[in-house]
């Protein structure tokens, strides 16, 4: 073998991710946590993507920024994730396992290493520029960060708008920068990255609402885009969360949302459905109403596509609790009422009557589309695109592009919401891990743990570091007073101040001071522990001080920011906060983080498409997998399916998949197997299984669990099902067509939402609209003279599946909406069924004789009640498992080490199940790839002598950790404990305490804080 060849076959243990939105971040975290080096290349000056612009997220109403910023901090702090911002890929060559990527870095004109992110430059810069982040509703400066929480936490100079660059004079930023970080002669750079795989997650761009001139965007000031409305709602937005019209800052009462602006419109815009707008609109209407109860929201829509998990429940709440009005109509024009700034919308009611209605404000729900440069981007990476300029992918491997080793994920792969983006972020990481598994750990940083000094018997020697945070704190609080006060406090042997305590040089200085003064406990008075505690804890550990001998006083968020108008009060309060922190620091004792070995084997429960893909996802990386299936054969619900809507053959795919799983040397398949017992914790589980007709018992030891228990088609009790042989479900219809064609089908009626969106099951089953369209198209193509009628409530052919809905309409398939209060009726007739229903346009009752009545039956989860009890896992009212967090942890269960995928989570298509299965494998790998896990020392501990065995801890723990042991007292396994502290609060005997937050450690702090006050 020649040198060149051997070089090319070297598999690299690193991955490049192009695009730093939430999906890219998830992929980066999974990869880096599983032993791979990640290079994240981001075009903007900060990572974050779309999610950072959102105000709240549905259905929980959680603040978007509050959810994503911890993830950003994780990305920013990870030693194996390298960020390259203002960067774009120029070219790529090589092949899977070893790609050489050339990246062009735009000049930032700010030295990110020196810059501490204090923001003085931004304040002093005289040049105002329209803010992209605030969607043009306000201004930023020419030296700026995209948004306050931007990562990396630094600034960039916008050369086109900088006065110095344009006119040769100014340099205010340089003059005021305390860190000497401005680089005027910064220039474009070329770097080369050598990586094993490439992940593309550049996202999409938003449709330009100005294209639809009749809707008045850009002409009428009170017509805004939905992303502008997000900023209007945001507490950190241009109006600080007050709902105001941009035109005159008046409070609007009647607000109209117009759906599908730029989506589902092949004439003026894009033919696809953008998938997220119906839900974000509902959320905006609800949140607007929460901000201002006088707001009356109206949503003009074609179909409400609330197809995700529990989404219909959210829409129902919007209607019932928030009086959101949903009006099915397309808006033909928006005109401004002269003088008032109000807007007149013209629309047709369902019966055709034209109405003019006046609103105070209009929001256009704009959709997504591929970036303008999508074709060039694809060319750079050498991948093929589909007709809509999305990357070409296969429904059975939805994250693979046409070029091996280059993967696509997130909305770039196709429109989707946040949880699906996060899910696919993990999925794509899983694919890359499988490709590069042999090089795992070859390029990652190894951190040697330092020797920790034993200080148990030493008197506390406290060092206090007070931070200026640039001007954030120092412009309000008199730092010197605080430092002098700190010096007077008990046990304090050093007190000093830093311009930026978190800066690299300050950290080094801090280490030197700790050593010089023999400091054994550290207090930092600065910003929020949520973002900075971990950094300081690492720093003190590096000089041999146990990291739990640390306390922070937040004199910024809790002081200088809120008391900026009263500096004396703020200074006094800072002193008190430091006093409290010093008292607590003195009370702390060192804590040890336990290390536990990991059993590097996975258990997958359920052998359908999701379970098998998850098993392969792990086994292809070299991990052993035990796959437990309760039926005699693998395959699950997919054994009854024929083809996907794209026409991909499910039977062949499934047979190949079963063969791969059954023949895989790392996978052991147990069929006819039932889980009977389950104990242990992340990294160390033991599951008992009864296997086969012989019912022999097996004990499996494993480090992770992947749940893939699946779902079934609902068995209808409606519309003569089971009584008339011409009534069948969509799956049965597909089987019938597969077996005997469509020759005998002259008239077919389909009824949607059978077993879904009703009282028993308020949710949408997601797959049934596409099943109906798929089968209808199949019939129409086999027998063009057949008439197919689809009776529906909302057609939910989301994303790129809208193409098929369009095609169906084009082929003459007839769609009739029905009102759930007046549903269609069916009666048996000779050789068929007669279906009667009301046509909403004419108001007439119609009757159709059908050879086949196909019921679009929903999905019901597999019966997992017993399994859920054994594994102690939560399920929702409908029986689907409940993930740890609907937005950002869509494949993790609340119990660590257990992951979920496929229809056990919620109804989904095969391609979506595959994505989630790969994601589950990826998440599981973050545990399995390690030989040992370090556990947090912040866990609950029982003083067993005091325990009254009352069971209150057992009953109140959300994770089911405490148990009454053989000695009759409570026992809390530190490896399982999440450290939430609920049991410690509830224990009536005060026998439980949470390490690091013991009663005396909290009370002494409160006493010190209130010293002199009470």
């Amino acid at each position: 073998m020649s040198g060149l060849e051997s070089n090319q076959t070297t598999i690299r243990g690193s991955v490049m991710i192009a695009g730093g939105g939430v999906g890219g971040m998830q992929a980066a975290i999974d990869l880096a946590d599983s032993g791979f080096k990640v290079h994240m290349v981001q075009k903007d000056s900060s990572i974050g993507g779309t999610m950072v612009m959102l105000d709240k997220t549905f259905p929980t109403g959680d603040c978007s920024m509050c959810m994503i910023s911890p993830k950003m901090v994780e990305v920013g702090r990870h030693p194996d994730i390298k960020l390259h911002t203002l960067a774009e890929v120029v070219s790529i060559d090589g092949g899977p396992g070893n790609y050489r990527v050339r990246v062009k870095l735009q000049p930032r004109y700010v030295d990110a290493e020196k810059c501490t992110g204090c923001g003085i430059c931004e304040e002093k810069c005289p040049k105002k520029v329209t803010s992209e982040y605030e969607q043009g509703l306000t201004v930023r400066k020419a030296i700026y960060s995209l948004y306050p929480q931007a990562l990396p936490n630094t600034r960039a100079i916008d050369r086109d708008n900088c006065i110095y660059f344009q006119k040769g004079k100014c340099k205010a930023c340089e003059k005021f920068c305390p860190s000497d970080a401005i680089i005027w002669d910064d220039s474009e750079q070329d770097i080369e990255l050598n990586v094993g795989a490439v992940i593309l997650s550049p996202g999409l761009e938003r449709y330009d609402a100005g294209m639809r001139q009749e809707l008045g965007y850009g002409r009428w000031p009170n017509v805004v885009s939905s992303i502008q409305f997000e900023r209007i709602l945001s507490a950190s937005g241009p109006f600080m969360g007050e709902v105001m019209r941009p035109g005159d800052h008046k409070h609007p009462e009647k607000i109209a949302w117009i759906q599908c602006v730029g989506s589902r419109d092949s004439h003026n815009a894009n033919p696809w459905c953008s998938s997220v707008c119906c839900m974000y609109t509902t959320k905006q209407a609800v949140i607007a109403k929460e901000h201002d109860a006088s707001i009356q929201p109206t949503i003009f829509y074609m179909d409400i596509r609330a197809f995700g998990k529990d989404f219909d429940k959210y829409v129902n709440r919007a209607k019932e609790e928030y009086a959101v009005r949903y009006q099915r109509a397309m808006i033909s024009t928006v005109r401004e009422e002269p003088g008032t700034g109000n807007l007149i919308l013209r629309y047709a009611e369902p019966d055709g009557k034209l109405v003019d209605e006046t609103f105070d404000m209009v929001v256009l729900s704009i959709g997504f589309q591929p970036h303008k440069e999508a074709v060039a981007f694809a060319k750079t990476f050498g991948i093929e695109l589909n007709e809509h300029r999305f990357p070409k992918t296969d429904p059975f491997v939805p994250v693979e592009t046409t070029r091996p080793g280059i993967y696509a994920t997130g909305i770039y792969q196709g429109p989707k919401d946040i949880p699906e983006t996060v899910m696919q972020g993990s999925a794509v990481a899983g694919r890359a891990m499988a490709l590069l598994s042999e090089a795992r750990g070859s390029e990652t940083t190894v951190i040697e743990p330092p020797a920790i000094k034993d200080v148990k018997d030493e008197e506390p020697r406290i060092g206090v570091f007070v931070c200026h945070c640039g001007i954030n704190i120092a412009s309000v609080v008199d730092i010197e007073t605080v430092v002098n006060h700190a010096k007077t406090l008990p046990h304090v042997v050093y007190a000093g101040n830093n311009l930026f305590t978190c800066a690299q040089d300050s950290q080094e200085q801090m280490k030197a001071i700790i050593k010089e003064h023999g400091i054994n406990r550290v207090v930092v008075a600065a910003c929020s522990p949520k973002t900075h505690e971990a950094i300081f804890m690492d720093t003190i550990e590096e000089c041999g001080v146990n990291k739990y001998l640390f306390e922070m006083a937040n004199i910024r968020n809790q002081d200088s920011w809120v008391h900026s108008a009263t500096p004396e009060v703020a200074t006094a309060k800072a002193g008190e906060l430091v006093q409290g922190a010093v008292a607590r620091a003195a009370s702390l004792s060192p804590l040890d983080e336990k290390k536990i070995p990991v059993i590097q084997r996975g258990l997958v429960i359920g052998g359908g498409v999701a379970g098998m893909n998850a098993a392969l996802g792990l086994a292809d990386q070299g991990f052993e997998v035990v796959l437990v299936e309760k039926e005699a054969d693998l395959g699950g619900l997919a054994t009854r399916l024929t083809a996907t809507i794209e026409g991909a053959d499910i039977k062949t795919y499934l047979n190949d998949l079963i063969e791969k799983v059954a023949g895989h040397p790392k996978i052991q398949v147990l069929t006819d197997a039932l889980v009977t017992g389950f104990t242990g914790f992340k990294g160390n589980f033991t599951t008992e299984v009864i296997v086969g007709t012989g019912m022999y018992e097996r004990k499996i030891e494993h480090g992770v669990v992947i749940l893939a228990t699946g779902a079934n088609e609902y068995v209808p009790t409606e519309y003569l099902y089971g009584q008339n042989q011409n009534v069948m479900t969509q799956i049965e219809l597909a089987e019938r067509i597969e077996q005997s064609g469509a020759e005998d089908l002259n008239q077919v009626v389909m009824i949607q939402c059978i077993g879904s969106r009703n009282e028993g099951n308020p949710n949408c089953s997601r797959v049934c609209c596409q099943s109906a369209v798929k089968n209808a198209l199949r019939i129409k193509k086999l027998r063009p003279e057949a008439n197919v009628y689809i009776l529906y409530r909302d057609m939910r052919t989301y994303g790129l599946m809208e193409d098929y809905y369009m095609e169906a309409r084009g082929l003459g398939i007839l769609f009739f909406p029905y009102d759930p209060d007046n549903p269609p009726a069916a009666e048996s007739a000779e050789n068929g069924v007669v279906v009667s229903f009301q046509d909403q346009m004419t108001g007439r009752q119609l009757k159709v004789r059908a050879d086949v009545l196909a019921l679009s039956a929903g999905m019901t989860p597999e019966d997992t009640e017993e399994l859920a009890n054994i594994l102690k896992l939560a399920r929702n009212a409908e029986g689907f498992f409940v993930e740890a967090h609907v937005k950002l942890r869509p494949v993790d269960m609340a119990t660590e080490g257990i992951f979920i995928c496929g229809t056990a989570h919620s109804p989904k298509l095969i391609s979506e199940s595959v994505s989630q299965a790969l994601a589950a494998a990826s998440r599981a790998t973050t545990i399995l790839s390690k030989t040992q896990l370090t556990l947090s020392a912040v866990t609950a501990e029982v003083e067993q002598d005091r325990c009254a065995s009352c069971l209150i801890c057992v009953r109140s723990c959300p994770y089911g950790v405490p148990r009454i042991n053989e000695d009759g007292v409570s026992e809390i396994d530190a490896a399982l404990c999440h450290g939430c502290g609920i049991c410690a609060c509830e224990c009536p005997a005060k026998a439980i305490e949470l390490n690091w937050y013991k009663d005396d450690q909290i009370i002494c702090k409160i006493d010190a804080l209130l010293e002199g006050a009470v």
Partner: protein
Amino acid sequence: MIVADKKPIEEIIEYLKGKQNILILGCNECVTVCEAGGKKEVGVLASALRMYFQNQGEDVKIDEVTLERQCDHEYLEEIRDRVDQYDAVVSLACGVGVQFMAEKYHSTHIYPGVNTCFLGATEERGLWTERCQACGQCILATTGGICPVSRCAKRLLNGPCGGSTTGKCEVKKGDEEIDCGWQLIVDRLQALDRLDEYETLCPVKDWSTDRAGGPRKVIREDLKQ
């Protein structure tokens, strides 16, 4: 276990008017389990009282101790060396503990901090229900494990009476209906296929072991030392 409920704090404050040194004394048994008088409740009550007295401008010292049990000499002995410094002790134990304390420490003022309610079970956290009235002659063997003494408002031994309608007792607790104890017994015997036992009349019960005969004793000669 013995189920107790917290006394309204106003009532406790009333007892303590003018006192300078107060001990709140918890018990780590039944009252801990029913969340009325364990160490946590001791802390909660002590803090509330401290706040109250401080607001009143009174300098009152309040200490907290929780004993393993207040119905045993040995545990009560643990506070002997300090009990004299208090001019009031609020015991969060059941009535047994309060009385035992009072008997042991004659000169100290003892006040109850809880209302002792009944012998019952924890149906779920926050819901306790009565099961036993300690009549001293257990007849559960013949009644399918359901006690007519505690479950029947009339303590009938051969029920139900004419006041039982559709399984409910004629007696109500406010708006809340009470299950007829004897209906429960009949249903249970039927489910156990032991309905024939219902035919056997229960003879007159010896009520001398019930509380009507005055304070009771259990004497076990075999255990006495």
